[in-house]
């Protein structure tokens, strides 16, 4: 099986270790991974901040770039949700029938990482080893827009050595919210403080998620507070083995 990796702009720039982990994981599971260097950004930041015109161009670019891909893997639940939830309305507004057709054809071949591994590859035990106590933060877009359900838990439960610590108020937002985190920095921080209390109460060493944006927010606060906890993208846990442990910053 061939799969094209849409790494997303911020993973590419700020969290390359997540991208490397996705490649390692998928190749271990027998997937031929390709990367199209013309990719940039899905347009989520622009769409959600009201820059609709700019989001249109990026959406168009995305659809054209992946029109012939066998499968597109997105290791970010919010970017995957942007494409699945917001592109249809953008496409309709653009009124370009040809593009709309291309998008409808592409849509069923777009996967958030955990969807691809569990639903398409049919694998729940990816052969990973991560001997740590871990709690899972359900990013809102993964939880609600993508309805990932228990997929991430099924993957985590099969990781050798991993002790899964349940998180209270799992469905409550961490307060990141893209540009919300700076436009409403104080409220965003208040939400973050509440989330961190729950996260730290788990006594986990790592907080994981399927979205580095939430983790950048929570991990930034953990670092600020010298908390005895770090963040790590789920892909890095799944890629981790005894021979090649996760790269954790």
């Amino acid at each position, binding site marked *: 099986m061939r799969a094209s990796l849409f790494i997303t702009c911020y993973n*590419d720039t700020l969290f390359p270790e997540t991208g490397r982990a996705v490649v390692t994981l998928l190749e271990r599971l027998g997937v031929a991974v390709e990367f199209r260097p013309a990719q940039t950004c899905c347009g989520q930041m622009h769409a959600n901040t009201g820059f609709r015109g*700019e989001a249109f161009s990026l959406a168009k670019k995305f659809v054209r770039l992946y029109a012939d891909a066998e499968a597109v893997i997105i290791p970010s639940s919010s970017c995957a949700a942007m494409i699945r939830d917001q592109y249809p309305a953008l496409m309709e507004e653009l009124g370009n029938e040809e593009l709309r057709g291309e998008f409808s054809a592409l849509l069923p071949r777009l996967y958030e990482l955990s969807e691809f591994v569990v639903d398409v590859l049919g694998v729940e035990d990816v052969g990973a080893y991560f001997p740590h106590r871990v709690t899972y933060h359900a990013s809102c877009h993964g939880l609600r827009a993508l309805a990932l359900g228990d997929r991430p838990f099924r993957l985590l439960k099969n990781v050798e050595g991993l002790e899964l610590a349940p998180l209270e108020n799992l469905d409550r937002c961490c307060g990141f919210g893209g540009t919300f985190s*700076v436009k409403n920095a104080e409220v*965003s921080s208040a939400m973050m403080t509440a989330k961190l209390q729950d996260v730290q109460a788990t006594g986990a060493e790592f907080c994981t998620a399927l979205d580095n944006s939430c983790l950048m927010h929570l991990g930034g606060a953990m670092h600020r507070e010298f908390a005895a906890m770090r963040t790590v993208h789920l892909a890095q846990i799944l890629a981790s083995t005894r021979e090649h442990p996760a790269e954790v910053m």
Partner: protein
Amino acid sequence: MILPVLDPKLALPFPKAALPVLRNAQLRKNVAHATDVITGKRARLVAEKHDWQALREAASAVRTHVLENLGPYLEQFEERCTAAGGVVHWAADAAEAREIVLAILREEQASEVIKIKTMTSAEIQLNPFLAQHGVEAHETDLAEIILQLGHDEPSHIVVPALHVNRSQVREIFARTMGLPDLSDDPQALTAAARNYLRKMFLTVPTAISGANFLIAETGGVAVVESEGNGRMCLTLPRTMVTLAGIEKVIPRYRDLEIMLQVLARSATGERMNPYTSLWTGVTSGDGPQRFHVVLLDNGRSDILGHERERQTLKCIRCAACMNACPVYRQTGGHAYGSVYPGPIGAILTPQLMKMEYAQSLPFASSLCGACYEVCPVKINIPEVLINLRAKVTDQEREEERRFFDPLYLGLRMASKVFANAGRFRAAQRMMRIGMKAFTGKDGWIRSLPGYGARWTMTRDLRGAPEQTFREWWAGRASGKVKA
């Protein structure tokens, strides 16, 4: 204490209005506790309803159908209500509605009026207007009494005094009712309110109410409440004025079957609310003998005209969205600067203001989607928030003062950068160099200047890595880097 301002024309932008609340530990504790209690009750009662999603779907269909046929249904309501002895008035805006109400009260020679269950009256700033014209308005909903006597403002649409706790209520009642020995026992507090209210119910012959539903088929009005004060207010006076937004109409009496089920469960976490009052026009010897309905537009037709935002008007004011909202949980209602707070307020208020005020509200959300998940009429609030953000951005981006606004500048530049992968690669390199200056020896950034400080005020930021993903990939593909 800073007095909350619930007039969108005067209120501070949301991020600024939220600041005093974030510093108010008592208020935040009250809001978190109250919303936890309501969301817990709601979740239990929704879980026991196996056809909940079908009910939501049905409620949504009723409301959507109404909005697509609003004109005919309103005309039908007017005709049937008039036939039953009511008088229907049409108010295009807040000023007209206020004048209509005042004219009715003058006709009644009323110097006092009792009120129940009407947010619409707060929307049109009715109480201060009546006071200016010599009519004293008394709220009779328990929560509204607490707020009126405490010179406070509502912070929630179903539980208006949600931000006030029991001991604070005791203090307000003790002070304003002259009861220094009052305890904070809930029974003692309700007894005090009862004594205070009973006199008004028996002496003030004119009342103003809101409406939960207007029934087109019968010309009837439905009001739901928990205390029975509404029932008093709706039955004892001689004259009743009902103020209702034009979107409140439902087609048939039997539609209440759906609407009342979803409303009670969503609003208070009850299978059925304690008091449901239904009346049609005037009945000789029973209830008010003069009955007026004021149908308020005040921006609603405008919203109706926007196909993508129209769903805002499906709202049945259950407040499930604000109870579930993680932003509301931190700020309570006052920060929204409107009688309609929370997620629904964030989309309704700016639209009622024709996008001329309250532009910060569509941005007062992390777009987490909790509101949409619980909405009993399936309003896709995140979608409307995003649409409204686009409208605000379209207004603002042409303004000269926005040219150097860091967020606008950044997003404009980002769109140029993202348009082309070559440019994106160059920007990544520049960003890495730029970030280096702020990065500590441990690879983390503790402080950024300018707009970046909005991030680093509470969060560190990991410095840019030595290699982007695409650089690693390119190296791997050319065999320079070990896979």
